[in-house]
Each structure stands twice: as C-alpha cells, then as structure tokens.
C-alpha cells in the first residue's frame, strides 16, 4: 500500500495527509525499518546511541510494575499513606521516588466491595509508565481499547475476573495526562504480612483493573 502520493507537496502540519509521508520509503520489515532510521539518525548526529541504551535499560530493569506494587503494598499497610495517596497520588508516589515520565499527574482509584475500577486509553495507549513500566500488548491492542468501554464485564471475564451484576464497574478512559493507578482490594489471609510480602501479591493487571491481587499461598 502506498501512502506517498502527497509527500512532495505537503509537509505542513495541516489535515490534508492521507497517511504517512514516509511509509513507502522505508523497508517493510519492521526490524530493517527501525535499523534504517537508527542508522540515518545516528549518522546525522541526531541520536546518541548511549542515550538509547540508557532508556532501554531503565524500562527493562528499573521502571516496571514492581514500583506500583510497592505503592499498593504501602497503601494496604499504612493508613496515613493510604489517605495521602487517595488525596494526592502524585505527591504520595513522588515521596516513594516513582514519579516520572508518563506519571506526572497521578490519581489512585480504589477497588471496594461496591466498585471495581479498570483503566484504558481508547484513543492511543496512555498508561502510567513511571509506576507500571511499558504497557503490555493487550493494553495497546485494538480489542482492549475498543471493547472495554462498551463491554467491560465481558473483557474482564476474558482475564478470568467475574464481577457480580450487583457490583459497579467503573472504566477510566485516560484521554488527558492524568494517569490512573488501581489499588486492588487487599486479599484475605495476608494479615501480618510485611510490605515486601504484600507487594509480591500485587500483579500488574491488578493495578490496571483487569486482575485481582493474588491470594497468599496461591
């Protein structure tokens, strides 16, 4: 498919494009496409390869759902922190050192016996990167983005989460720079657990709302 028939006349930021101006000028194989851009940009002096390595290392090894799990575990075990988190999640999370890119404005939403929260970005794939890391494929998929707003209960069943008819489901569509962190319900049987033990029960999906926290010993 060609999208290049306008490339010679239309480099403004107006609305007249019918698709990508560069699509047909790049290799179709994605690995080659990325390599072509990387080579060009590096040779042009526009990219420092060490900066790429630093970014990839950060998201592979440091910034991930283990950060969000620590926030949830503290909310479960420290009532003062929970109050602060619900009042101003950005500030409370910043105090734990997890504020950052795609987590500049945080809101925590708490699951209760009455309400189950689930987060989506129907327009792109906004996700709280600073506390959960890179979003999984399903979060970015057309299926999730299109369906969870119109059929949240059906989508949750595919994740193995069955919400009773009498409980409210609240879907948060992240259309702005507010990033939502779901605080799952604390499982029974985890009394006396340390924050570290509690954090091990907090899954990525439970903080998006497509899962529940793990049961101790499960």
């Amino acid at each position, binding site marked *: 498919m060609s999208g290049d028939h306008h490339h010679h006349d239309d480099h403004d930021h107006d609305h007249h494009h019918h698709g990508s101006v560069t699509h047909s000028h790049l290799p179709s194989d994605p690995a080659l496409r990325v390599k072509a851009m990387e080579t060009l940009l590096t040779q042009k002096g526009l990219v420092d390869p060490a900066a790429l390595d630093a970014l990839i290392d950060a998201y592979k090894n440091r910034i991930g759902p283990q950060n969000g799990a620590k926030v949830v575990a503290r909310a479960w075990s420290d009532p003062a922190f929970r109050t602060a988190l619900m009042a101003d999640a950005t500030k409370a999370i910043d105090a734990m050192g997890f504020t950052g890119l795609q987590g500049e404005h945080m809101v925590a939403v708490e699951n209760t016996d009455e309400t189950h929260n689930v987060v989506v970005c129907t327009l792109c794939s906004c996700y709280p990167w600073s506390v959960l890391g890179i979003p999984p494929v399903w979060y970015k998929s057309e299926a999730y983005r299109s369906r969870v707003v119109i059929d949240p209960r059906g989508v949750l069943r595919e994740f193995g989460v069955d919400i009773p008819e009498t409980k409210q489901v*609240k879907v948060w569509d992240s259309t702005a720079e507010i990033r939502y962190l779901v605080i799952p319900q604390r499982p029974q049987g985890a009394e006396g657990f340390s924050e570290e033990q509690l954090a091990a029960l907090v899954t990525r999906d439970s903080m998006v709302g497509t899962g529940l926290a793990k049961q101790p010993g499960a």
Partner: protein
Amino acid sequence: MNSIHDMGGMHGFGPIPIEENEPVFHHDWEAQAMALRMVMGAWGKWNLDAGRHANERLSPQQYLTLSYYERWITSLADLTVEAGLLSVEEIDAGTPRGKHDLGRNPINAEGVLNLLRKGRPAARPVNEPPRFAIGDNVRAINFNPEGHTRLPRYARGHKGKIILHHGGHLFPDTHAHFQGECPQHLYTVEFAARDLWGPQANERDVVTIDLWESYLEPA
C-alpha cells in the same frame, strides 16, 4: 479527527490478546523504536500531542496493519521529515547528507535519565475561574474537528457529571498543531454506561473520561 485511532465502542476486533509472562519487549527492534522515538522527541521539534497526532495521521489501513512500535517508527519518520531534520531523499538513500546543523548535541544518557525522573508535566496555570464544579451536570459537545482532539466520538453529545477537577492543563487540540498550549481547566466526567451504550449496559456501570472545559457545556 474521526479516524481509526478513536476506537472506543467499536466491535469486531476479537478476543483480548492476553499473554502470560509477557516480556517487556518481544524484539530488540521494538525497544530501539521506543528509544529512538523518545530521544528524537527531546529535540523539542514536536511535542507529545503532535507525536500522538502523527500516529493518528497514518491512514486507517496503515494504522491497523502496523503493530504498536511499527506505528511509532513510521510516524517518527514522518515527524522527522516534517520538522526538516531528515529528507525523504535521505531516507530513500539510506545515508544522510552530512550532519545536522542544530548547533547542539543530542540528548545523552544522563539527559535521558533526568527526563525519565522529571517527566513533562502538562499542568499549567489558568487565569479564568473554573466554569464547572464537582457534581455539576454537563454535556459533551458534538463536534467533528479534522485536527487532533481528545474528545472521543463515543462521548460526543452525551450527558455526564463532573467528578474531579484537575486544574489547568495544556490543550492538546491546539498544542498538537503548534498553535500554543492554550491551557484550560481539565475535569474527569462520569457518564452512565446506559447513556452511552443503551439498555445492554449494566445499570450500575459508568465510564469516566478526562475532558477539557471547552469540550463541555452545562446540562
């Protein structure tokens, strides 16, 4: 713009592609695409909203054919050409004509880590008092701009209720087109699922959407 990216409420995309123990990246090129997009954004030649709009400007056929990171690298090439940082001829040739003339060095590893820590807050002061208060009933306007907007089609014309007020945030509809930050009050609006989708929805369920003041009118 009313394109395929605005897919909330569509049918036909099938089951959710859930993968147990999913890796952070499935291929090295995905990580490279993510990183290239982010370090190139650091030149400040485009902003987050313009970057999102570049993805939306892929044709619907391209959008649905390309995977997430393929969209990123393709729209990165578009943004780079539009910003004058690369030419289509250089892309065709596979080699640049000399170095850039921006007069500074690209972001380095330390700069990247600093960006990850500090982020890019979107909150901005707004002089006007908020038009709406928490608890107010509002209606999302009906409009169909050809440019970037963050008011999804599925909410347009529907009644909801303000549940959060976030203060002033820069306005994507102008920001994406390099027409200024034009900050406005930002609210979270709760819509009854039945109002959006009809009687098939559970009567208790709600959908919340973050909406700027000019997207809303009193109801």
